[in-house]
């Protein structure tokens, strides 16, 4: 009889099986073999058998390795120490077969032979490595023809991620790959040496479709957008009308526009957009990519504070800068990030995410600090809010009162 009757069930069925993957590795690797057996045990006991990991790291770095120990080391000795290494993936997850093979060779030498392509932050996850192998494994990766470095973990900058952007996508409003690569290189120290109250994530999507879910998953979310008019190719509109029929254009494009700012004339087969009421949602462009494209004045919206549950419940990021130009080398954004980190470091409590700090002290105090302490003037903008406050608990500073006095005196 099979040693893993429960897991064997998960080899069946059309979707590619992770059990088959573990077995594949187990066939030649004793760590993977014990991993398989331990997982079967978890399935039987309906609970994990991994223990809280201590801090495990490679020399010079404070993050990038997740320590992990099995709680039944006698029974599963080869996974007694079974850490993961987070490897900073290439921006946009682009690879050559050579790069992939090289990683595999190193990993087979030191670890379980099991990986995640990719972790949910975006790293390559090398699953299961004994403590003593961590450093040599890292250095072998470092000395590959295409070298790979370690990503983030702990209270540091996490591996920044970008959608494929201009590499493959016609919607990209800025160069997500260049931007994220530039940030990653600029902030190597922040990425490798935890020093903040908690983790910090940067993600960039080339347009409001947000294909890396930056708004939901990053403390600093950069979303491509435009300010001027949607570009319309009326000839291409006509082709769509011919293919889909006027009714579908009316029902599926025009009527689904959230601000109802489009008009379609079934006679001329032309689309008209009242751009002053367009909110750049992308719906019409998504639907008619040959005919419509973002405007020419392109840049990004920067939103801040997104994160998962703990402790104040999950946040979606909040608009900080409705529109910024995205020009290499992004000096303004680098300066802004440094100011943010410094302010958060000064004011944040232990394990308080950046967004939670803002929630605690109020956006206005953050804006005030940016201006007065860091010289970054971000004026309050109605686009920062879904709607203005509904409660009357306003903090007035002495300066505010002075200014109001000046205004009403004259």
């Amino acid at each position, binding site marked *: 009889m099979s040693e893993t009757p429960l897991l064997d069930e998960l080899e069946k069925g059309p979707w590619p099986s992770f059990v088959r993957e573990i077995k594949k590795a187990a066939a030649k690797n004793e760590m993977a073999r014990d991993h398989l057996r331990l997982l079967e045990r978890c399935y039987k006991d309906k609970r994990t058998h991994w223990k809280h990991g201590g801090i495990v790291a490679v020399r010079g770095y404070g993050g990038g390795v997740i320590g992990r120990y099995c709680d039944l080391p006698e029974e599963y000795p080869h996974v007694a120490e079974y850490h993961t290494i987070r490897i900073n993936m290439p921006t946009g997850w682009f690879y050559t077969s050579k790069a992939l093979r090289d990683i595999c060779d190193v990993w087979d030498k030191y670890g379980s032979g099991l990986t995640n392509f990719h972790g949910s932050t975006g790293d390559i996850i090398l699953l299961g490595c004994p403590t003593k192998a961590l450093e040599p494994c890292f*250095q072998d990766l470092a000395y590959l023809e295409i070298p790979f470095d370690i990503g983030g973990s702990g209270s540091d900058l996490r591996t920044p991620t970008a959608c494929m952007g201009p590499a493959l996508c016609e919607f990209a409003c800025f160069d997500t790959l260049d931007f994220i690569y530039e940030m990653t290189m600029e902030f190597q120290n922040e990425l490798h040496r935890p020093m903040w109250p908690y983790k910090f994530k940067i993600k960039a999507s080339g347009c409001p479709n947000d294909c890396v879910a930056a708004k*939901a998953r990053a403390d600093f979310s950069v979303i491509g957008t435009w300010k001027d008019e949607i570009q319309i190719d009326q000839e291409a509109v006509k082709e769509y009308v011919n293919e889909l029929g006027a009714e579908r254009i009316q029902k599926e494009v025009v009527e689904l526009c959230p601000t109802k700012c489009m008009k379609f004339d079934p006679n001329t087969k032309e689309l008209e957009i009242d751009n002053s009421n367009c909110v750049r949602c992308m719906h019409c462009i998504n639907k008619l990519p040959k005919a419509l494209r973002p405007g020419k004045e392109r840049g990004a919206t920067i939103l801040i504070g997104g994160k998962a549950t703990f402790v104040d419940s999950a946040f979606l990021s909040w608009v900080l800068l409705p529109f910024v130009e995205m020009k290499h080398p992004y000096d303004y954004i680098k300066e802004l990030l440094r100011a943010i980190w410094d302010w958060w470091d000064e004011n944040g409590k232990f394990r308080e995410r950046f967004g939670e700090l803002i929630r605690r002290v109020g956006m206005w105090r953050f804006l005030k600090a940016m201006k007065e302490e860091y010289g970054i003037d971000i004026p309050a903008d109605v686009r920062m809010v879904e709607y203005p406050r509904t409660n009357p608990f306003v903090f007035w500073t002495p300066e505010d009162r002075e200014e109001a006095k000046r205004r009403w005196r004259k």
Partner: protein
Amino acid sequence: MSEEKRPYKTDFGPPDYRLLLHPVIKKNYGKWKYHEVIRPGVIKRVAESGDVVYIVKMGTPRLLATDTIRWIADLAEKYCDGYLRWTSRYNVEFILTDESKIDPLIKEIEEGGFVVGGTWDATHAKYGITNIVHTQGWIHCHTPATDASGIVKSVMDELIDYFKEMKLPAFCRISLACCLNMCGAVHCSDIAILGIHRLPPVVKNEKLPKICEVPSTVASCPTLAIRPDPKTKGVQVNEERCMYCGNCYTMCPAMPMADPEGDGISLWVGGKVSNARSGPAFSKLAVPFLPNTPPRWPETVGAIRKIVETYAEGANKHERLGEWIERIGWEKFFERTGIEFTDKHIDDFTLAQVTLRNTSQFRW
């Protein structure tokens, strides 16, 4: 350089992505004109220059053995000049320039036990369900309330037609996180699978004072359920106040939460991230608890199928799950899916007052 002598390298960063781009991508970088999904799993991308690439999208279980990656590398070399990428949802995108190679590639993929699909075609309102964002579960984490990979496998087996075809009226994303830390960031998904604990931590006061700081353990609890225990120099948990969040266990290993009966799965619906039409939205609780029933989690799989099918039947074109519920009302969502509404659905956390209904607008 021999291993011993080479200097210790740090902070060199990831490979420059430009070295890893297919030449046709480099050439047309930033100059793509449009795309078309020419069949499920295959996207044609046309550049302003007239150049064309074809993307063949292959589903993966995310957890891959090195040998499988080598096999993928083989395929990339055979069909794609050695260039490929992964997507933000664990799918492989093979980058082809020769249309005639599409069929043979797909054939090889399928022979290898993998699947092609996961695309969506907004133009024609035909949407597939793509891979499930997920997390470690029993594979590698110390705090899960459920597994990740096994549930994903079971759900994707069930929804395989939705992956291989594009038969949904709109875009629908599924995510999974195995505990409240929500590494899968499930909080904004059309359908979210979330592992939850339902028992307070088991306090191991015999070892707690040795491995944890009492003040930071006490401080970790959002509901102030934890107090110092002078007797043991450890802590006590007021079980009435515990909401099973597990934050204390994250801070202190001497307060484990895992329990085969207490742990299980909750399902959430109606979140989204994109700005298309409506803005991003949080997922809302649909099913508060389903038991952990490995290896196949039939209750969870069944509930998800029911939700997907009810949605697929009722939604208008391009209408995401949350948009559909918004239109038909939560009354009808619970009625049509047959899910029971309970006091667990009623928010009692910091924003509760925003979720309680202020109007007498009801459907009956």
